[in-house]
């Protein structure tokens, strides 16, 4: 079974856009081949996740709503997908912690000989203390030079892979997810979803319990899959349990602000 082709075909089938013969053949396989039936179950869940994450095209979205969601069972599955997405958004798994921890552990090659400590007695005994101190000085200078070079060298691959210590939460205007207070040293990155990307620059105002606490300008539009977002990073230290709102405005070429939407989230312990 070609998994990718099967997955795409099943997705089209579930959305009601698979043509006659291929549809009949697939239905026969659903009935007779256990692996196709199992794949169908997996793709159903993935389709729901894509819908919840705004990852479907306009046509797919339309078909999802008019064709896929016809049964009570699937509507129940969609609700579950939405709840799970909300949970995952409010309990992001700190992937970065793992890499940070890994980066903090010195890398030791298995089987490498143990490093010997530097010892003056290893130098040839010359019987002349001045020469011994001279050699020691040169060695110390060498060590200092090596340390400096190490400092100037570009970061190792492991260090480059370190992920920014941010907790990412995608916010849609109608949702109000619960977000945990970010771990110490972490910031909260909100990805504000936009229906229409009409502006190049955006401005935000953050409210806590209806009181303005932060204003940010020069926010740029980004695309994320099929979705447009405006990223807004909030310092983790300024977040405490409570209800927050972000008011987003688009900034026109003339500099005028135009209200776009309000986004809500609740910070919890």
């Amino acid at each position, binding site marked *: 079974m070609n*998994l990718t082709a099967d997955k795409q075909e099943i997705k089209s*089938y*579930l959305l*009601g856009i698979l043509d006659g013969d291929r*549809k009949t053949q697939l*239905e*026969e396989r*659903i*009935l*007779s081949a*256990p692996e196709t*039936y*199992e794949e*169908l*179950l*997996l793709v159903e*869940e993935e389709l729901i*996740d*894509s819908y919840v*994450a705004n*990852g479907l095209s306009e046509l797919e979205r339309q078909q999802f709503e008019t*064709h896929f*969601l*016809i*049964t*009570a*069972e*699937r*509507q*129940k*599955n969609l*609700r*579950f997908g939405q*709840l*799970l*997405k*909300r*949970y*995952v958004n409010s*309990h*992001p*798994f700190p*992937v970065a912690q793992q890499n940070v921890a890994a980066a903090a552990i010195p890398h030791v090659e298995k089987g490498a000989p143990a490093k010997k400590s530097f010892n003056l007695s290893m130098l040839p005994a010359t019987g002349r203390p001045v020469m011994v101190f001279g050699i020691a000085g040169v060695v110390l200078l060498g060590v200092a030079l090596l340390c400096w070079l190490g400092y100037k060298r570009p970061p190792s691959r492991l260090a480059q892979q370190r992920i920014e210590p941010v907790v990412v939460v*995608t916010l849609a205007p109608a949702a109000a997810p619960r977000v945990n207070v970010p771990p110490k040293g972490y910031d909260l990155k909100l990805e504000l979803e936009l229906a229409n990307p009409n502006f190049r620059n955006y401005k935000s105002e953050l409210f806590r319990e209806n009181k303005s606490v932060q204003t940010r300008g020069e926010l740029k539009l980004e695309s*994320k*899959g099929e*979705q447009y977002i405006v990223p807004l990073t909030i310092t983790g230290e300024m977040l405490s349990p409570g209800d927050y709102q972000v008011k987003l405005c688009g900034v026109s070429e003339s500099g005028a602000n135009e209200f776009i939407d309000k986004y809500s989230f609740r910070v919890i312990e």
Partner: protein
Amino acid sequence: MNKDWELSQEAFDALLDWLDSDREQAALKYEKIRRSLIKIFTGRGCVEPEDLADETINRVTSKLKEIKKEFSGDRTRYFFGVANKVHLEHLRRKLPQPTPPPTNDPDRIELEFNCLERCIEKLSKEHRELLLRYHGADGPAETEHRRALAEELGIAPNALRIRVYRIRMGLKECVEKCIERSLE
């Protein structure tokens, strides 16, 4: 089919015998056929797929004596042929209205979310972490994120999909039971 015909225990036993001489295997095959028929009728846009699947099975069962004489080959294919007829008849009848979407009552949503939280807490640490990490990225980064996760676990990406699917199904079952209990 005679509309008054009902599936008796005797007829059901005969159906199982026809599906497989081993009773346990026959029961598994029956379940699989029924579940697949439900998916097929759902895929064809039928609002009551369970009823149509049962109607298909009943129709096969009621004609089993004749089928046994005439038909040889993959038995699941026979169900597919009958399902097509049942579907055509269904299209001629008045179509039932689609199920209205579930209520968006905020209290109900909170109740369901609380159930989900409780059920996730009941998961083992490994399963909880795997579920959160698997769903931790979407959009263009999703595929790479899941591929890296599978590599870290030393399993194929498809095996990871199946593993997370099973955790998710267990979680869904737990949430459904929790909601039922909470509404009692």
